[in-house]
């Protein structure tokens, strides 16, 4: 069985879309062989982590460095058939990758400054690309896979008492340890929408909880404990507004489209193509309010729901496509 190593300096970060992307791609690679994840951290014996074996190779030795200078003893003795480096320049651990394999070293670009285009816009990479490494310098657009549980459509989230609402996601700031309702933590977009649409239900998801707003006032707060809770909220929304979509794939936008709920997002970054297929974009507050109003029109909403769902399902609904694409980069049979 082939063995692969995945080098990732941010593995397992709970609030990071980058970490989610790395884990998903590593999972696709694990369909072809055993995968060890090599990451900075206190040296310890290899730990099981789902389908992977997690190997911490020490803390960064210099200030500002992402990777340590790794002693031979900290690395597993075997050599891998291939290495996938998550992130790329400027913290690219080329020397470490070279010591782990004599085979292919591929780089998984996750947008931002690490984009193969060199674009410094932190939200400029709408798709995942894998640089084939030394043997194959061509870039491979491997796409991505996002899954939702379709049974979320069967019932709305208990307690909220409404459907057909405007759902506003609160961004990706680290949430407090205890879920809480604090209007000061609402993104400005949510506050504008609450004020602009007082006669409609507006639901804001912030800090592990959802607040129901109507008449510009809070009518209840409920915890959102699982991804299924979030999917239920998306499935019964009129529109999902994500003021700060994920920088790599804008996961929540894809999930919303998979439920047939149009998205309204800023007109930059990874979410741009999602909105083009099933939603609208804004660059300023007046456009945000107009687009949410426009998307609420039943005829337009139905058209966007249909086109967005088809786009999300075709492009992100196939795990096989991602598995085969990653395998093709490493020259593995489908």
């Amino acid at each position, binding site marked *: 069985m082939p063995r692969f190593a995945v080098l990732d300096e941010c593995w397992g970060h709970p609030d990071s879309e980058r970490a989610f992307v790395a884990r998903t791609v590593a999972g696709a690679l694990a369909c072809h062989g055993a995968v060890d994840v090599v990451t900075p951290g206190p040296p310890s014996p290899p730990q099981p982590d789902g389908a992977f074996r997690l190997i911490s190779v020490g803390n960064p030795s210099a200030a500002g460095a992402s990777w340590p200078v790794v002693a031979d003893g900290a690395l597993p003795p075997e050599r891998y058939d291939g290495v996938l480096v998550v992130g790329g320049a400027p913290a690219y651990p080329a020397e470490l990758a070279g010591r782990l394999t004599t085979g292919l070293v591929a780089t998984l670009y996750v947008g931002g400054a690490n984009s193969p285009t060199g674009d410094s816009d932190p939200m400029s990479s709408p798709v995942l690309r894998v640089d084939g490494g030394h043997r194959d310098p061509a870039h491979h657009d491997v796409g991505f896979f996002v899954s939702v549980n379709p049974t979320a459509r069967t019932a709305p989230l208990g307690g909220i008492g409404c459907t057909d609402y405007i759902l506003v996601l609160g*961004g990706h*700031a680290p949430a407090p340890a205890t879920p809480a309702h604090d*209007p*000061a*933590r*609402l*993104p*400005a*977009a*949510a*506050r*504008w929408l*609450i*004020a*602009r*649409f*007082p*006669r409609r239900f507006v639901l804001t998801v912030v800090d592990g909880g959802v607040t129901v*707003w109507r*008449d*510009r*006032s*809070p*009518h*209840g707060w409920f915890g959102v404990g699982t991804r299924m809770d979030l999917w239920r909220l998306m499935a019964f929304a009129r529109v999902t507004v994500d*003021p*700060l979509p994920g920088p790599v794939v804008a996961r929540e936008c894809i999930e919303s489209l998979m439920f047939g709920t149009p998205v309204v997002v*800023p*007109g*930059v970054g990874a979410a741009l193509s999602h909105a083009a297929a099933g939603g609208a974009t*804004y*660059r*300023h*507050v*007046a456009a*945000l*309010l107009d687009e949410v109003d426009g998307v609420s029109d039943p005829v337009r909403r139905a058209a966007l729901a249909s086109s967005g769902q088809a786009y999300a399902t075709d492009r992100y609904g196939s795990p096989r496509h991602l598995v085969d694409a990653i395998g093709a980069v490493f020259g593995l049979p489908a």
Partner: protein
Amino acid sequence: MTADGSDGGVAASADALAAPGGGPTPLSRAFTLGPPLPELAGHPELADAHKGWVDVEAAGPGGGGLEQRVAGLVVKILRRHPEYRQQRELLAQLTRVVDALAKRCDELERRLRLLHDETAEVADVLSEDLTRLSALAALRRDASAPDA
């Protein structure tokens, strides 16, 4: 738009819209009257009061026994007493007053709900219009800024 009368100090850009805080300030408490109160007219306690008054006005104890005939006679005599009649009249009046107050409470409840609905509509329309205007003003302000 905010408690301090400013527009929240926000720029209109997408970046600013993603940041916490800023924007119009939402109300801190739910704008609601809660569930409607049950109508007092026909309320069981009010019905009991009416029934009690009817019982008082009903004929006194009767029957064939000597003791009951004597009791009935005493009640008849007492009912002719001016003070007793005055108290009966007062009791009837109180019953009517309670009835009228119940109707008034029900009417006040209806008017309060109507007022709440009308206030909500006015507040909602104002909020919609002011928010639209504020958004346009923020856009114009950003467009006319030196670095725009």
